[in-house]
Structure formats: structure tokens, C-alpha cells
């Protein structure tokens, strides 16, 4: 035989099977591209020198691992689909006189082609788009750096090695499958009579229980710190539950429907129920995959988008003024010195303090008790609250002139508080009014607990609280916050901030200084990084979802063709056939999306709690982002449906 024969045959095979190979190669290109870009970002030497760059890079590294794992699983999955479709072809080759080793050579050449095209095109596109991705990332991070065109040799090497290995493994698995089968079996492999699916009650029950438990955990978790641990458990339970219910639960349900004769023996239900039974048997895992992928896309995108959009709000909440002078233990002399330092620095720059706030406060970290009061006794849960008390006299722009003893104003920074009274360490405050804003800088870092600002009548009330705290061994001290705005941009603020900080350190003054512009960089480094990763992973998952749907439609089209021919001969009209196809396909198609929606609905509460850990407490924003993501996703899904349904009808007709 001509030594180019196999190479040519392999090329022809790929072209002939373009309908299924084109999307496969496209997936390969997409995966390679995403992997290379994340790899290049991970190994980018310039990033490390940027502020927050190390954090971003470790995020990218995490993304790299996710994409790597995903590529392995997903390329194997699509490959198994391809081989199943092509077994007949290989059987024919075998019967026409090709030895198995010749077929192996064809398979080898085909793999080489697919791998070469995918890896080379993926890398080229990756290198081209890397620059764009990098600029986008910098934009998201609000980094203002220009870096030249850059190749990442390390990223190229690991991409080639990883994907080379994946394709090699898929080829070995294909060869093994062809090797073990005899030609007749290969030839008839797509016609083998299929057994009726069995009802697996234990699995169905396990699925229901684990889904229920996952939902229960997600709904009942009250505080962010517990949420962190519970979230992963809940996710695992829900994934397990989804797989079990899609595989066993659906079949149990359909069989139960079939036993109800009055329902079953009706024109619409008869064909749909029995058709779905087999469809679910074959596709349950694929549908569960789509469902879980969709949920991931939705969660990843909605959280990262809302984090990113909410960043400005968070910064404002965290830094109510451009510059803040902080003193954890108030010492009037030191405080005066702190102010003096700030003033002198401002004078050098010709700036003055504007929008000043200057208040004393005390911060208590307590446990929420079963009766809703706050005290120091541990409750065994992680339901922790932070109460910051401020005397009315210090509070600027209070809506009331005076508060009677035992009265207070409440501002809720994060969490919820519905009651009219608040009991803190045995002292009950009647809440006279609620504030809509409060220029409070959250001193202890991110408000991972619920945070309540309580404006108490006077300094005496505050000191009583501190004294009560000391008796139960809680550290409580009078603190001070002095914040002000400058009529200047971020650059000037940063200079002023650095100078004040240096001066304070030099003069050994105990307080600290904070700067909004400085905090902004950290926030954007973190959230921009998340956002970028969210988009990359979201796109990748979306691509996977689309591809699974596409393959599903095609494979089902071929299988359904003969069935509908028979039904037409027995006396089903064209319109009835179409209707029946549509109802089944719609069900199969939109079931995962609906279930994903339900998952999100149950997860909403716990995700809100988790976002609190990232200081996003704007539930409305998150709700809007989630709704938006779901709508966009559903629209894309519908488009994919319309496109693939057309292919499907073309095959069936």
C-alpha cells in the first residue's frame, strides 16, 4: 500500500465526518486557548511586581488547574461520543479487508491531525488573544501598566504536553475499543436492541435525600462563616443528587406514569412517556452534566459580575472618606499629635480637610443568642455579630438632637435586624430610628460578621458598655475615627497617605492611617481577578454545554429517524410526529436549564452569605446580576436549541 494511503484516508474520514468532528476540533481549540492564556498569565513575570499581582496570579493558577481538569474530562467525553458514532465505519473497513493494525494506523493519523490542528490553532489564537486578555485583565484590575508583546514559553510547553497527553490517551482508548470488538459487532453496534431501563429505587431515593439535604443546608445556613464550610458540602450533595435523580429518579417517575393506564394510553402521553424512558436511559448522565455545568456558569458569572459591579459600593462602605485617621486605643494626646501630623502634610500640599467626621466608638464582637440578644456566651454556632457603639455627641448629622437613656439609633452595615430593641451585654436599647447611611470605617477588615452601628445617647452609655464587656473578658476599648475628604485625585491622596504614614511611624504615634485610593487597588486586584476568571471559565463551560447539547441532538436524531418512520406507517400523521418530537426534545432540552434555575434559587441564600465574606452585602445587586445572567444564558440556550433542533429535524425527516 502507498505509504500516504492512511494519511489520505484519515484526512478524508475527518472531512466526511465534519458534522461531528468540526465541533470536536473547535472544543479542542477553545480549551487549548483558554489553557494557554491562563498559563501565560500565571507565568507572566511582570505581574508579580504589580500590587496584588501575586494574588491575581494564584487565582489564575487555580483557573489553570480547573481548565486543565475540565479539558481532560470533556475531551474524553466528546471523543467517546465520536467513537460510538464511527464504530460502524471501522467495522466496514475491517470487513472490506483492512486489518485491525491498518485501522489503528488510520485512527492514529486522525488523532495526529485533530491534535495538531487543535493544539497549533489553539496556541496561535491563544498567543494572539493573550495580549487582548492581558489588557482586559489589567483594565479590570485597574492596573495602569503597558507591557509589550510577550511569549510565554513555559505556558506553551505545558499546554503542548498536557493536550498532547490527552489526545494520546483518547487515541489509546479508541484503539482499545476497536481492538476488543469483532467486525460484525462493530458493524451492528449502533443497532443493538436496547434493554428496557430498570428502576433503581435505592439510587433514586439516595438522589432525593442528598438533593434535599443539600438544599436544606443551603437554605438553613445563617451566617457567612458556617456558610463557607457548608457551601462545598451542599454543592457536593446537590451534584450527587442531580446525577442520581437524572439517572434513576427520572426513570422511576416515568415508569410510575406508565403504570397509570388511564394516563399512559393517551395519544400524547403514550409516545412521549415511552420515548422519554429510553431517552433518559441514554442521556441522563449527559443531561445531568449540562445541568451542573449550567449551574456553574450561572453561579460563577453572577457572583463575579456582582462582585465587580459592587466594588465601588464596597469601597465607599469600607472607606467613607478619602483619608481616615484611626486610633485603636484612644489617647487624647496621641490623637492630637495624629491630627497635627495630618494637618502639616496637608499644608505642604496646600490642601484642607473637607467633609470631616471625627467620632469615638467602641467595637464589640459577640454571639447572637437563641433569644436574639447579644452576649459573650458561646452558642456553639458561628453566628457572630459586631456591634459598634458611637455616642450621639460625636455623630455628625444625626436626625435627632438628643436620645433618652436606653434609646439608640441603628445602622445596619451588613446582615439584618428586624426587632425594635437590641440587647447588648444585658443592656437593652430601644431603637428610636434607623439610619440609612453612616460614615463608619470598618476597622477590623472585612465585615465577615453581621455589623450593627448603634448610636447611643452619650459617652457614658458607651463606657457602661465597655465596662460590661470587661467583666466578661471581652476586649473593648474606646477607639477613634477621624475621616476627611481632600479636594484632589487619587494620586495626590496616595502621596498624602504615604507621607502621613511615614510621619506617624517616624514620630512613633500609635494610630494608623487609611486611604480609599490605596484600598481601591486591593479591591480591584481581587474582584477584577475573579471577574476575569469568571468570564474565562464561564465561556468555557458555556462552550461545553453547547457542545453536549449539539451532540445529543445529532445522536438522537439518527436514533429517532427509524422509529418515526415506523409510527408514520402505522398511522401517525406528519403533524403528530412533529408535535411528539418537539415535546420530547423540548423536555430533554430545557429540563437541565429548569433544574439549574431551581438549584440557583436554593443556593441564592447561601451565596449571599458567602458574598458577605467579600464584603458584598448588596443583595439587590446580586439578585439583579443573577437574574441578568440567567436571562442571557437562557437566551443563548434558546438560540443553541433553535440551531440544533434544525439539524435534528433535517436528520429525522
Amino acid at each position: 500500500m502507498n505509504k500516504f494511503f492512511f494519511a489520505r484516508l484519515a484526512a478524508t474520514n475527518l472531512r466526511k465526518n465534519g458534522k461531528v468532528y468540526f465541533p470536536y476540533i473547535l472544543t479542542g481549540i477553545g480549551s487549548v486557548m483558554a489553557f494557554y492564556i491562563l498559563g501565560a498569565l500565571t507565568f507572566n513575570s511582570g505581574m508579580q511586581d504589580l500590587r496584588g499581582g501575586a494574588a491575581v496570579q494564584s487565582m489564575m493558577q487555580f483557573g489553570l488547574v480547573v481548565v486543565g481538569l475540565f479539558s481532560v474530562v470533556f475531551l474524553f467525553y466528546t471523543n467517546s461520543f465520536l467513537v460510538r458514532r464511527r464504530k460502524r465505519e471501522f467495522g466496514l473497513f475491517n470487513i472490506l479487508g483492512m486489518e485491525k493494525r491498518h485501522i489503528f494506523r488510520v485512527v492514529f493519523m486522525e488523532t495526529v491531525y485533530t491534535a495538531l490542528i487543535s493544539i497549533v490553532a489553539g496556541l496561535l489564537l491563544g498567543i494572539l488573544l493573550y495580549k487582548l486578555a492581558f489588557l482586559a485583565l489589567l483594565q479590570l484590575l485597574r492596573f495602569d501598566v503597558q507591557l509589550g508583546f510577550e511569549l510565554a514559553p513555559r505556558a506553551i510547553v505545558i499546554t503542548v504536553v498536557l493536550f498532547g497527553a490527552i489526545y494520546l490517551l483518547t487515541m489509546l482508548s479508541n484503539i482499545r475499543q476497536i481492538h476488543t470488538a469483532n467486525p460484525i459487532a462493530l458493524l451492528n453496534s449502533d443497532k443493538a436492541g436496547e434493554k428496557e431501563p430498570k428502576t433503581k429505587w435505592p439510587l433514586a431515593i439516595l438522589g432525593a435525600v442528598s438533593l434535599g439535604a443539600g438544599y436544606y443546608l443551603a437554605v438553613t445556613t445563617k451566617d457567612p462563616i458556617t456558610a463557607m464550610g457548608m457551601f462545598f458540602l451542599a454543592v457536593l450533595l446537590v451534584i450527587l443528587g442531580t446525577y442520581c435523580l437524572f439517572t434513576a429518579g427520572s426513570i422511576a417517575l416515568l415508569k410510575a406514569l406508565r403504570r397509570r393506564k388511564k394516563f399512559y394510553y393517551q395519544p400524547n402521553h403514550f409516545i412521549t412517556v415511552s420515548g422519554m424512558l429510553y431517552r433518559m436511559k441514554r442521556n441522563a448522565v449527559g443531561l445531568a452534566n449540562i445541568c451542573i455545568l449550567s449551574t456553574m456558569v450561572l453561579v460563577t458569572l453572577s457572583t463575579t459580575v456582582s462582585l465587580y459591579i459592587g466594588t465601588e459600593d464596597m469601597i465607599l462602605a469600607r472607606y467613607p472618606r478619602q483619608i481616615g485617621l484611626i486610633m485603636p486605643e484612644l489617647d487624647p494626646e496621641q490623637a492630637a499629635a495624629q491630627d497635627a501630623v495630618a494637618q502639616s502634610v496637608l499644608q505642604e500640599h496646600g490642601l484642607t480637610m473637607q467633609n470631616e467626621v471625627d467620632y469615638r466608638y467602641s467595637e464589640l464582637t459577640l454571639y447572637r443568642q437563641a433569644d436574639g440578644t447579644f452576649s459573650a456566651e458561646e452558642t456553639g454556632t458561628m453566628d457572630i455579630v459586631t456591634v459598634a457603639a458611637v455616642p450621639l455627641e460625636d455623630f455628625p448629622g444625626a436626625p435627632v438632637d438628643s436620645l433618652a437613656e436606653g434609646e439608640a439609633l441603628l445602622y445596619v452595615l451588613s446582615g439584618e435586624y428586624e426587632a425594635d430593641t437590641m440587647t447588648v451585654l444585658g443592656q437593652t436599647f430601644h431603637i428610636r430610628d434607623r439610619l440609612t447611611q453612616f460614615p463608619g470605617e470598618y476597622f477590623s477588615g472585612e465585615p465577615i460578621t453581621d455589623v450593627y452601628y448603634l448610636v447611643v445617647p452619650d459617652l457614658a452609655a458607651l463606657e457602661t458598655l465597655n465596662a460590661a464587656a470587661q467583666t466578661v473578658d471581652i476586649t473593648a476599648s474606646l477607639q477613634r475615627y477621624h475621616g476627611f475628604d481632600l479636594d484632589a485625585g487619587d494620586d495626590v491622596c496616595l502621596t498624602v497617605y504615604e507621607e502621613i504614614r511615614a510621619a506617624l511611624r517616624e514620630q512613633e504615634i500609635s494610630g494608623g492611617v487609611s486611604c480609599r485610593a490605596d484600598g481601591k487597588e486591593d479591591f480591584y486586584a481581587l474582584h477584577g481577578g475573579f471577574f476575569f476568571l469568571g468570564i474565562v471559565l464561564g465561556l468555557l463551560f458555556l462552550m461545553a454545554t453547547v457542545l453536549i447539547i449539539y451532540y445529543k441532538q445529532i445522536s438522537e436524531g439518527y436514533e429517532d429517524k427509524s422509529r418515526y418512520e415506523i409510527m408514520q406507517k402505522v398511522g401517525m400523521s406528519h403533524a403528530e410526529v412533529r408535535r411528539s418530537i418537539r415535546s420530547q426534545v423540548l423536555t430533554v432540552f430545557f429540563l437541565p436549564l429548569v433544574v439549574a434555575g431551581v438549584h440557583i434559587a436554593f443556593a441564592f441564600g447561601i451565596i449571599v452569605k458567602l458574598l458577605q465574606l467579600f464584603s458584598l452585602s448588596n443583595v439587590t445587586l446580586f439578585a439583579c446580576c443573577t437574574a441578568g445572567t440567567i436571562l442571557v444564558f437562557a437566551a443563548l440556550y434558546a438560540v443553541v436549541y433553535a440551531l440544533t433542533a434544525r439539524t435534528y429535524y433535517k436528520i429525522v425527516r
Partner: protein
Amino acid sequence: MTVLEVKNLKKVYTTRFGGNHVQALTNVSFTVEQGEYVAIMGESGSGKTTLLNILAALDKPTSGEVKLGGRDLSRLSEKEISSFRRQNLGFVFQDFNLLDTFSLRDNIYLPLVLSGKPVQEMEKRIAPIAQQLGITDILGKYPYEVSGGQKQRAAVARALITRPQIVLADEPTGALDSRAAESLLTLFGEINRAGQTILMVTHSVKAASHAGRVLFIKDGEVFHQLYRAGLRSEEMYQKISDTLTMIATGGARHE
């Protein structure tokens, strides 16, 4: 009473751009009376399948008419055709055409379900038919679990359950071994004696020899016909063989 009347039937297949004309049926006319058992014989490519497809309203003739129970098939609208087919025709195919996803019982019920019959009615109808065909015990099984002969019996049951005016059988013994074929043909005889009109298309002499009348088609025309007229199957077999030999060797035409 005439059940089926076929008059001057002609079918020409045209390739998409009108380049090639293939004449499948030139001029076919015959009638089938109530309670008759007619076999149509012919070699591959003689137009048998085309004829059957037209009788089943799966295909439309180029000219000529087909009347079933007095109704002209070509006058039926697209919507009416399916239900007409369901109510008046029963089909038995060479490759059974049972759906793998249904049990035998559900396969038999299929046309009734499509007509929207109530469950009690279906159960009442299936019992005697399954009894007669000897498939009562295997109704709950799936097509892939039973033998070819049993599958074909289920297909026959599906054809009979709608109490059709005529059963159209397309090479019903083609995929069966000789014993299963023999017993199916005996069954067809019994069903016919019970009053069911049957039209069978076949090229098996054995199958045709069970029929009451045999039509021979050649080159799209009815070439010859044979009446059983009290002959035993063996004698009928001999006559059919002779006729086929004559047709193949190009003998003179006689009616």
C-alpha cells in the same frame, strides 16, 4: 362487495430536475372482493412495493385511482390520510417494524391509542386476537426478547386490532425461518377464513400458494392471474412455479 378497486394505476418516478423518468407502474387494474385473500407476485423491481405504498396511501399515483371501501384515496387530504390509514388498513411488514421502546402489548395498542380509544376497549379487543395468535403469554415482553416468528405475530395482531377493511402484508415471511413462515401462513389462512380480507405482496411461491388468488406483476403491469378454485396448496404451488417459469422465459401472455 368490492373492498379495493384499482383502476389504470400509473406511477412515474422523476429525478429532482426532471432528467430521468422511471416508470414503476404502467397500467395496473384489479379489484379485491370482501373476504378475499390475494397475493401479488413479481420479481424485484417489478413495481410490487410501489403498488403497496400507493395502496397504503404512503405514496401518490401519477394517474389512475384507488378506491378503498368506495372512497377515493387521492381525494383524501393530508390530515385525513393518517386516520383513514389507521382505521381502514392493517399493515404487516417484512421487518416487523415493531418499536423497540414498547412492549408487544403496547406495540399492538399503538394504532388504537393514536385513535384515542379508551383502555377498556383496547383490553377487550386484544384478548381474543392474542389468543388466536398464541402470543397471550408474551404480551409483556419487548421485541428484542422474542423470536422473529413471535415478533411477526405481534405485528399481525397490531394489524388486526383496528378491525381494518383490508390487511396489507409486504413480504411477511421474508425474515422468518421456514417453520415460522409456515405457521404464519397457516395463521393468515385462518384469519382469512374468519372473514378478513388480505392483500399480500411477496415473491415467495410458498407464501403465495396459500392465497385464494395470485396476481403476477411484470414491468409495471398485471401480467397474469391464477385462481385457486379448490386446489390444494401443493397443486397451487406447482401452478405458480410454472407460471413464474413461463414469465421468466418470456412466454406468451394470457389471462
